[in-house]
């Protein structure tokens, strides 16, 4: 049984199409992340799933039941908001039990539930405080507690970590992941942060302008992006996308970046054979361009060496990001911090050719 089915959902505000036919299906226990730039419709979609907004057309099923005409409270969902949305005048305990109060759950049962959730989230000591007396991280926990106490079919998270500082965000991210492992709950999680998407999701839906660009597991999204948008959106720093020409070479097709003697020739995936003689976009992740001598994976033959001028060097400590020139374009490489480079010099780099992607420059879809 699928936990959530979104079927051809459209949403129009006035003359603006915010969602243009969304189809998604999520299994029970899945952690699905909706990710995309602001304005892509991901939060609108979440609100429609929650029943807080009404879709223009299409339908939503939760746990196999069509819920289009069901009120939010009866959809068996719980939601965590970016602003936490804790009721300011209530204590933490009252915040967590408010839903049960609305559903006339007996007091003893409410107390049991609060105790259980407070223990799980380690907020027992905070139960009698007001939200204003809590730190950002504590508020976040209470907001989660309010959702967990319901034990719903579906959890909805709307950018829950965006208001936290960087360090806390990483901590809470890990906790959410652990909670998901322990409880096996089904989660739909909206974020604009692609790292959150990669680290948390069992499946990611990348959205742009009201359309799902790709719906797949994180590895596929990262290594086999469906189009140039996904390639550039996911990953930090993003994938290098460089115009090239596909030519026939001795051992298969070759993507040629640049023109004259400095042209870089990279072996292209075999599936692209019928693009020989045409322009393509080459996609290559920065971590696939590294210091010479690096062996990628277990196929030494997949590693080739190129030379390229160094235009900028950004040491981050763990690694060094290098801006190099490939043909007429700039590209990013991630090299070992031990590699001593100098601006303006031409240096050698190892390239992992296994993960090269090719895109159609017209439609922007991936060819191979």
């Amino acid at each position, binding site marked *: 049984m699928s936990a959530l089915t979104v079927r051809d959902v459209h949403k129009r505000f006035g003359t603006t199409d915010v969602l243009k036919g969304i189809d998604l299906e999520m299994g029970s226990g899945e952690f699905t992340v909706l990710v995309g730039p602001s304005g892509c419709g991901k939060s609108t979609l979440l609100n429609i799933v929650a029943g807080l907004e009404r879709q223009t057309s299409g339908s939503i099923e939760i746990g196999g039941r069509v819920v289009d005409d069901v*009120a939010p409270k009866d959809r068996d969902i719980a939601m965590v908001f970016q602003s936490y949305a804790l009721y*300011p005048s209530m204590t933490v305990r009252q915040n967590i039990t408010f839903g049960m109060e609305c559903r006339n759950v007996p007091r003893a049962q409410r107390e049991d539930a609060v105790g259980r959730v407070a223990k799980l989230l380690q907020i027992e000591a905070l139960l009698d405080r007001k939200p204003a007396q809590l730190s950002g991280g504590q508020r976040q926990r209470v907001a989660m507690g309010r959702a967990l106490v319901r034990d719903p079919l579906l959890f909805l998270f709307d950018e829950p970590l965006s208001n936290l500082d960087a360090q806390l965000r990483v901590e809470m991210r890990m906790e959410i992941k652990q909670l998901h492992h322990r409880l096996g709950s089904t989660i739909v999680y909206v974020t604009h942060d692609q790292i959150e998407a990669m680290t948390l999701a069992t499946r990611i839906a990348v959205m742009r302008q009201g359309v799902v660009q790709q719906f797949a597991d994180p590895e596929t999204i990262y290594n086999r992006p469906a189009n140039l948008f996904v390639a550039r959106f996911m990953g930090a720093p993003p994938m290098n996308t460089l115009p090239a020409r596909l030519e026939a070479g001795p051992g298969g097709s070759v993507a040629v970046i640049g023109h004259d003697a400095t042209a870089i020739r990279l072996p292209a995936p075999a599936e692209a054979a019928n693009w020989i003689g045409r322009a393509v976009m080459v996609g290559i992740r920065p971590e696939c361009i590294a210091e010479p001598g690096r062996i990628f994976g277990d196929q030494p033959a997949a590693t080739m060496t190129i030379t390229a001028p160094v235009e900028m060097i950004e040491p981050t400590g763990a690694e060094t990001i290098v801006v190099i020139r490939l043909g007429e374009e700039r590209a990013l490489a991630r090299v070992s911090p031990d590699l001593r480079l100098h601006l303006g010099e031409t240096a050698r780099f190892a390239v992992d050719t296994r993960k090269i992607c090719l895109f159609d420059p017209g439609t922007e879809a991936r060819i191979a």
Partner: protein
Amino acid sequence: MRHGSTCNAGGPRVPETNFTIRRAVVYLVVFLIAAIYLVPLVVVVLNSLRTAEEIAQTSMIGWPIHWAWSNYVTAWLDFCIAQTCTGIRPYMLNSALITIPATLISTLLGAVAGYSVALWRFRGDNWIYGIVTLGIFLPQQMRLIPWTIVLRDIGLTNTLTGLVMIHTIQGLSFTTLFCRNYYVAIPQDLMKAARIDGAGFFRIFWRIVLPLSPPILIVTVIWQFTHIWNEFLYGVTFTTGQQQPITAALIALSAAVADVPQHGVQSAAVMLAALPTLLVYLFGGRYFVRGLTAGAVK
């Protein structure tokens, strides 16, 4: 003043003496304006403590020679207004019976109305809000005839209930405006969370919105109370005799000066009539300023 000195801290030094003189000039001007503003009040307060003879023999402006506290007793208990010698007591009671219910009902209804237009989107919500608040801009005189007809048709002419109704309904324009502008600052996420928790319109109002409301409710109550208490036109138009509120009765009182002008007692009556709003201002004034400037919820 402190603000001025911090501003100068980094800039060119202003000589201390120059600064003190400038400060003195500012204070002087401020005090002068305040004094001019307070003159009528001072005259009334002083006259309320002088006897009629004293005022007649000297002038309207003067320090009391004999402190005539009895003016207040007379004004309150047995001064004759339009041939009824009951003092202003029954009229004060009338005003209280009009002002208190009208203030409470209009504030409560305004809170509910403001809550619904601020936090619940429905078809035509902005139109309804616009029409309700339009009442603020309609001159009182324009509404006299319609109210006359309404009061006559529902049989509430010359009753306190009629005035309560008028002030409640007309107060809604302001109370809705105040509350709505306060409630729009309540985050929509709070509403969404409550809806998912299963709370309906009134439960959200009662359990979430109302506990956040004291600052704006205080402002609204002060505003409504002073306006309704001080209101004169409807009081004098729609009630006569024993049904009049204090503002209307005061006019009758000043007209009832056949023999000797009773400026002392009249002044005392004015002071007593102004006392409730003065007290409201003294005790609630700081909440008023704070409430009007407060960002609602965080």
